[in-house]
């Protein structure tokens, strides 16, 4: 390797990296410190002499208590979780089958179908939310979790299909052929031989899909109206701001609690997540 001087390593490596780390993590630190700071300290003039914004001497859990007792926050957490899990499962199911078909089977229109699934992958939700709201109303799905459980797969399935298709292509065809020579049906070989090998790919797709649906906002904002039915992002936006007043302590406590579940899932499966992320663009 190229040998470097010590000061050079500091200037070109440690200092920039530290700036990146601080810049990336500061907003999270700020969330935390705001959430545990008493209101009296929170709203103090920025020129006040004794203002020490970066820490607090009187940490309090009052904001968390308010959030859990006075709002339906736990219910939002459960809604978000339920919707994210079910729509992820649906998308994985569809993505597995479709990905296998596109990677392995020969049939007319295979190319066209593959391309159109890829194109739907690139259709952003904000292009379709107005007509979709109408359709949801017509199907009598408005204000139910099913409105989201059925629409989230529209952006999850293309991604899952794409990722799993790439994964299936890396599995040698011979494995299936052997199984079929031994008498397995096509379907049997797919379910018993190929799917078990694809478990890492399935996990990656699942983790990524879960975080995407946990983060979704615009559909949830439009399709749900009663406070107890909302997901965390929508609940925080619409219920923790009353009129023009922002309850920053509660807001930050909510932001923190709403981020923890995805952060935990992510921290357990970082490698799978990264595979899903990089696979999502390479296919």
């Amino acid at each position, binding site marked *: 390797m190229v040998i470097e001087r010590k000061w050079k390593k500091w200037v070109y*490596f440690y200092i920039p*990296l530290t700036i*990146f780390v601080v810049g*990336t993590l500061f*907003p*999270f630190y*700020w969330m935390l410190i705001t959430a545990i700071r008493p209101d009296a300290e*929170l*709203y103090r*003039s*920025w020129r006040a002499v004794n203002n020490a*914004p970066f820490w607090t001497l009187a940490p309090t859990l009052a904001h968390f208590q308010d959030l859990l007792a006075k709002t339906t926050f736990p219910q939002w957490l459960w809604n978000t979780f339920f919707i994210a899990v079910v729509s992820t499962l649906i998308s994985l*199911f569809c993505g597995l*089958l*479709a990905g*296998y*078909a596109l990677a392995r*089977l020969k049939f007319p229109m*295979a190319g066209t*179908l593959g*391309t159109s*699934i890829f*194109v739907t992958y*690139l*259709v*952003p939700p*904000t*292009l*379709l*939310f*107005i*007509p*979709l*709201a*109408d*359709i949801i109303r017509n199907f009598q799905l408005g204000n139910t979790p099913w409105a989201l459980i*059925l*629409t989230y797969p*529209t952006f999850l*399935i293309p991604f899952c*299909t794409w990722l799993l298709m790439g994964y299936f292509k890396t599995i040698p065809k011979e494995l299936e052929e052997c199984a079929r020579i031994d*008498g397995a049906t*096509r*379907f049997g070989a797919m379910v*018993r031989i190929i799917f078990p090998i694809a478990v890492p790919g399935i996990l990656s797709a699942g983790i990524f899909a879960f*975080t995407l649906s946990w*983060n979704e*906002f*615009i559909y949830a904002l439009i399709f749900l109206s009663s406070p107890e039915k909302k997901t965390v*992002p929508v609940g*925080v936006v619409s219920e923790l701001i009353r009129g023009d007043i922002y309850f920053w302590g509660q807001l*930050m406590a909510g*932001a923190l609690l*709403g*981020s923890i579940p995805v*952060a935990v899932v992510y921290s357990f499966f*970082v490698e799978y997540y990264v595979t899903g*992320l*990089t696979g999502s*663009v390479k296919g």
Partner: protein
Amino acid sequence: MKKPIAGGAGDAAGTVALPHPRTSGAKRPSAFLENERWLAAMLLAPTVLLLGLFIAYPFVMGVWLALSSTSVGNPGEFVGLKNFLKAWNDSIFRTAFYNTTYYTFWATVFKLTLGMYLALLLNRHFRGKRLVRASMLLPFIVPTVLSTFAWRWMFDPTFSVLNWLLYRTGFIVTKLPFLSDGDWGIWCAIVVNTWRGMPFFAITLLAGLQTINPDLHEAASLDGANGWKRFWHVTWPLLKPVTLVVVVFSVIQTFSDFQLIYVLTGGGPANATHLIATYAYQVGVATGLLGEGAAISLFMLPVLFIVVWLQLRYLRKLEGA
């Protein structure tokens, strides 16, 4: 998953733990799944059904809405291109369109340069690398709405910590108007978008960097290439394909962004920071003019179309090569 066996002998076969179907007869209903076309049709049916129902159908309906005078509680009638013309002559829409382009351009430039820089830093060996890499992705994991609230609080007109910091270090004497001025507002949004999207660039480019054979760098430095030359002549050409794909994804997401502006500025002050999506929401959902709102959001289509077309053409070229 097991199909019921049509003929007799089902009981006996069921109790034996063999992966069965050696005894398959032509009558079994699963026989037609041996036909590749039928199997493919079965496997693709759920996907096609869901995507057709919730993407293709709304798309067609969106075009119809955009050509009609529909509003909430009023079925409306066909009005031709009136909604599009109205939007085009609307000064708020023009601002929104300009903002969207501006926002997408600068945010993408920053995400790409900073993401590349970070990827190059993370590609080296140092202690705690895995932890740093994992924590770098946090902004991308956490729901955008929630993290944008933290930024909004940091940009707060009265209690901004950034103002405090700059004031205390002597850079400013009066507060900076972060979100209370349109030009500042859109730049704040660019900063937040960059903060959120940069990890995606960094991690994807890092994955690309890791596939580059270190021997190439070794050879280049033996030939006397310095760091910048090695990047420009060795790393960059090899990284171009993955970069292009990441940029396309990011452009689409940034161009159609909604939640960041919705939380950060709400389109204000005085409609100065709207993006196409937030303005479509304001007109179509908040005001209830479904036809006009649908027309506004369809203005995104040409740009998205060009981007997707370029991407597909590029992918074809790669497959052909």
